[in-house]
């Protein structure tokens, strides 16, 4: 999006292959959307004021506006509440579209920096959110140094990492998978 002035969207730049890509990435009923707006009325992203909430995302995806969708960070704001999937009258599965756009964005490394941070944490520790330096605080509170989650079970964590290495993560991870 340009800064200042009116943001005119040039449909000439629209790319039908992007629609096909999203369909292949899981949003296979995307084209059935009739823009009734039911999802937009329940989406927390819309309530939170994100510029590209679910209804606009579906429409932009249908038009094949690749650049707009990949440059805007709204899809990463999705809370995965799945309300849109439950109420969609056309069975478009809007949440699947969000996931498809995220997959497409990962392929071209077009996602916010904290996404990578979360991804790295997920791979290393088994948690997307991993606050640093909590060991001391846990000790003070009389807790074991590490919480009883994936981080405490090295062997299981290695197995889990091996599974992840067999996914597309192997190709697209912007950090070493060691």
């Amino acid at each position, binding site marked *: 999006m340009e800064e200042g002035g*009116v*943001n*005119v*969207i*040039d*449909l000439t730049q629209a790319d*039908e292959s992007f629609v096909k890509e999203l369909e292949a990435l899981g949003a296979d009923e995307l*084209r059935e*959307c009739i823009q009734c707006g039911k999802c937009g009325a329940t989406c927390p992203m819309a309530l939170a004021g994100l510029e590209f909430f679910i209804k606009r995302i579906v429409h932009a995806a*249908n038009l094949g506006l690749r650049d707009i969708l990949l440059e805007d960070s709204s899809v990463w704001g999705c809370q995965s509440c799945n309300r849109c999937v439950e109420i969609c009258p056309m069975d478009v599965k809007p949440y699947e579209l969000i996931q498809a756009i995220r997959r497409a964005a990962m392929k071209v490394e077009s996602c916010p920096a904290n996404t990578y941070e979360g991804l790295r944490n997920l791979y290393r520790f088994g948690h997307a959110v991993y606050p640093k330096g909590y060991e001391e605080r846990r000790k003070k509170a009389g807790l074991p140094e590490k919480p009883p989650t994936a981080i405490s079970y090295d062997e299981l964590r290695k197995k889990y990492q091996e599974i992840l290495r067999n996914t597309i993560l192997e190709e697209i991870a912007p950090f070493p998978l060691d």
Partner: protein
Amino acid sequence: MDKTGKPACQICEKGIPPKGIQGCPADAIKFDDKDEYINLKVGAVIIATGFKPMSKHYFKEYSPHSPDVITSMEFERILSATGPTGGELKRPSDGTKPKTIAMVSCVGSRDERYHPYCSKVCCMYMLKHARILKEKYPDIKLYLFFIDVRTAGKDFEEFYVYTRELGVKVIKGGRVSSVDVKPNGKLRVRAFDSDLCAPVELDADMVVLATAIEPPDGVEELGSMFTATCGREGFLREVHTKLYPVETQARGVFIAGCVQGPKDIPESIAQARAAASATAALVIPGKIKFEAIISEVDRDKCSSCGVCVPLCPYTAIRIVEYKGKEKAYIEPALCAGCGVCASACPSKAIKFNGFTTEQIMAQIDALTEA
């Protein structure tokens, strides 16, 4: 774009001699037939003149001077196998195949400057054109600009969803504001997309305008010939939308199809059949029942002034000879019982049955008796 300019094939007349195919063996076709006028005496008339598509030239904002900006009716001809291009999709300006086509709805409809009504069929035929194109040329880019998509009716919404699934792009809340010809011959289309909440632009090779359905030329004169009246929009008016949908206020004159208002083919056919049944019900019995509440002339009192003749909205009054003098005569089959003539007659020669002076005076007396 009306005619193909190709000579007729004449197969039905001459056959294909090398293949041994003869022309019509039943000799059922008159090849030398010509237009002629036939005078008929009839008991009822159905007016079904159809409509006129609006011309693109009213819409200066859509660059009507460009040959690549065409109306849907012209586009229909381009798509037709017997059309000027033999069914091949070509740009009228340079004959190249367009890659991007924009279609604009509500051109002249839902517009106070031209026609405030909805032309009803445009949404569906735009989708039809889009579907034909997309099935024939899957790579073509189609953008349909609607104010909103009106697909009411059986199977229509399914048609709409199916067309969307083919990859036709639907822009809603966006009647196109302008079409400009760019120096490279492309057409720059500007609109607003309310689903994107943003203004949009598009470079199209061709723009198709779904222009409004208009009443045909001269329908008002035709209507007044039959004493059928036109509504505010210029279409002939039915007596009652629900109870008398094919009747006009003139008895024996019926209407069907787009002369009554914009409608699609199934509706026109249904209305035509209704008009045909109404006509048959009127004509076949050979007798007509008419209302008791009609006017009558006491011809002995009539002074032959003729005041009543032009006043009658149903042309029921004629001057005919009676006892060697010209006197007014009211045709009971045409009289609708409005009473205009009775109140206007200076000689009080016209009796309005059911509302005679004595009857009305008696009613007033009864009401004012305290």
